[in-house]
């Protein structure tokens, strides 16, 4: 579910940023001789359409049609009564509501005279949407254009870096509302969830490892659960369509916080070595996620991943790790910027420890 602030801040992402992204996309489309490109969005796969228009779905799915020239169309599966809201929170020339976005997108492709159409993540698009679109597109040839889009999407501009950083700061500030002295995990979760949303998060998925000594894996908490002598909270948080995963470990005994400082130093060293994963090899578990196409945090490499994907130099990613020191497990996660040329990889927002 989604239940946070949905807003487009022109101060944070001016129209010119979206216009520049659209121009880059169209240049790539022209090079590939595409007449139009289609990007899908829903609650889960937000990061393509939000990157091009600021629009983040609250519940419905939709399709963005970008003709090589002419107005882009965003068609969402909701009532026309909601279209006014959609227009208020997005930057797109045409915004429509309707029961079946596939049909609307197909008709628009036909109206535009598009013959060769690229579809982002074509294979994973839901089958009924593809059927609707293909059946109304006037015979246009639809083909996968994921690689084209990924090549552009993974080169962040300053606005994206700033908003990821802000999301990380919101997450860290919210995580600082828990102290480690909570006896029930719900108290800590409530404080962090509340603060995240007050600070403008459009969503925060809270997970916890309520007793790190017993099990360091994160789960969504339900009911009442007691905390152990150390626990960890993970906030997977979005701000204006920009997602981060931040984690903090809490200790009942303040003396244990030195462990976290040591873990943080090892984590920072491992992150600095990215895109090489060598620095993570001794960790209990780890992974690096990044937005490649439309999923905000796609798995890229890690201890669970058999076939790692390459991190693009200069791209935004998110690293997390479980590190064991003196028999104690510490959980960490933070957004990072992958190094390029002479600049090493580093945190956009560094993980922090210690009580408020």
């Amino acid at each position, binding site marked *: 579910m989604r239940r946070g602030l949905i807003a487009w801040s022109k101060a944070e992402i001016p129209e010119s940023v979206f216009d520049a992204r659209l121009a880059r996309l169209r240049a790539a489309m022209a090079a590939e001789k595409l007449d139009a490109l289609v990007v899908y969005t*829903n609650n889960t796969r937000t990061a393509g359409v939000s990157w091009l228009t600021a629009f983040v779905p609250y519940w419905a799915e939709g399709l963005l049609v970008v003709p090589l020239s002419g107005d882009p169309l965003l068609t969402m599966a909701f009532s026309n009564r909601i279209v006014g809201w959609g227009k208020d929170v997005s930057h797109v020339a045409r915004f429509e509501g309707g029961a079946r976005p596939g049909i609307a997108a197909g008709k628009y492709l036909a109206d535009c005279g598009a013959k060769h159409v690229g579809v982002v993540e074509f294979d994973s698009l839901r089958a009924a949407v593809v059927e609707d679109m293909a059946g109304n597109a006037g015979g246009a040839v639809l083909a996968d254009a994921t690689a084209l889009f990924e090549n552009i999407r993974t080169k962040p501009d300053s606005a994206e870096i700033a908003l990821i950083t802000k999301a990380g700061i919101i997450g860290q500030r919210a995580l600082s509302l828990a102290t480690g002295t909570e006896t029930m995990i719900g108290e800590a979760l409530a404080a962090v969830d509340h603060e995240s949303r007050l600070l403008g998060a459009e969503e925060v998925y809270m997970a916890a490892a309520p007793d790190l000594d017993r099990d360091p894996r994160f789960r969504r908490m339900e009911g009442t659960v007691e905390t152990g002598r150390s626990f960890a909270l993970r906030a997977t948080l979005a701000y204006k369509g920009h997602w981060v995963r931040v984690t903090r470990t809490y200790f009942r005994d303040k003396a244990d916080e030195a462990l976290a400082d040591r873990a943080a130093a090892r984590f920072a060293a491992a992150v600095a070595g990215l895109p090489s994963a060598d620095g993570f090899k001794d960790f209990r578990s780890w992974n690096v996620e990044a937005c490649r196409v439309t999923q905000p945090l796609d798995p890229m490499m890690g201890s669970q991943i058999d076939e790692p994907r390459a991190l693009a130099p200069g791209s935004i990613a998110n690293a997390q790790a479980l590190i064991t020191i003196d028999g104690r497990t510490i959980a960490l996660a933070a957004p990072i910027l992958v190094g390029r040329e002479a600049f090493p990889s580093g945190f956009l927002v560094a993980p922090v420890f210690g009580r408020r």
Partner: protein
Amino acid sequence: MLAQERRNRLREAMAQTGIEALIVYGNSWQSDYLRYVADFSSLEGHGLAIITPDGSIELFLDSAAEAERAEIETTDIKVKLAPEIARAVSSRLDRIANHRIAAAPLGFMPKFLADATRGYKLEDGTSFVDRFLMVKMPEEIDAIRQAAKWADEGYEVFKKAAVPGRMQFELIADIEGFFRSRGCPDNFMIMGSGGKDVFAMAPPSERRLVAGDMVTTELTPNCRGYFAQICRTMVLGKASDLQKKAHAVYREAMEAGIATIRPGVTAGQVAKAENDIFRKYGLGEYATSKYTRVRGHGLGLFVDTKPHILEDVDTVLEAGMTMIIHPNTYHPDTGYMVLGDTVVVTETGAEVLCGTPRELFEV
């Protein structure tokens, strides 16, 4: 254990109908089919699960965080992290290509998986699962009962949070903090504030509440995967006579809808009972799709499930179905107004699970 009972129901039905494998899909918005089969509600990425008549379940997830979470939140399920999820599941189905395989919801399957040129054939298993999603077992109703209790408590928090000067999204922060403190993992809500200019509820914005606003919301907290909903309207200050008169129509309509519910009647008859009240007061236009979406809907493992309460829906109600009855719509004198309670269909009628008074609140 509820998850095991659901699995047993499915297994028995699969054996009776000859379905040899059932594949279900879920994502962060709609996870009901996935949760029913795999007892896992997705938050990020796609989830696909396959259950076979021996009760074995494989759960494929394309998010690393979700795969880790599923490992700890589920039992007796094989969890697989599959970044290329459609291809991974397709490879799995290739191994049982000669089996009778049903998919639910079929239209939600990724194109690659549903491609007719694959070696296996997917038949539509949506209605096969829908029956289980709609008619609940007693333990499922218990979870909805608890969620409805949280909805009542949440509305009290919402009333206190709704103070002139605060922005809409700040109210959501208070609600979510409250639900997390109660161990409630999830909630869906939309809201509206203002007057005759408000035609619908929408996601929370930065609009500041002002004295005299009519504030609408629906809260939909979740207990063990099951959602209950409440819809209420309040006025920041004293309600006008017009607002009170309008609210009385909604109350009469909702109560007419609830009074109609019993096994054997259709969802359409319930909707008609609600809409007839609007028509009686010359407000029939506002019971049409121009101003409103549905007059209620099913509740369960999804916030907006079948049956939809609309006059053209012929789903026959059965004991054990759970739903909200909400004649929410625009009123020309006051703006958009909401009122709704979660109910469970009993052998003789309907049991209302929400306890919040059906008032137009003045705060």
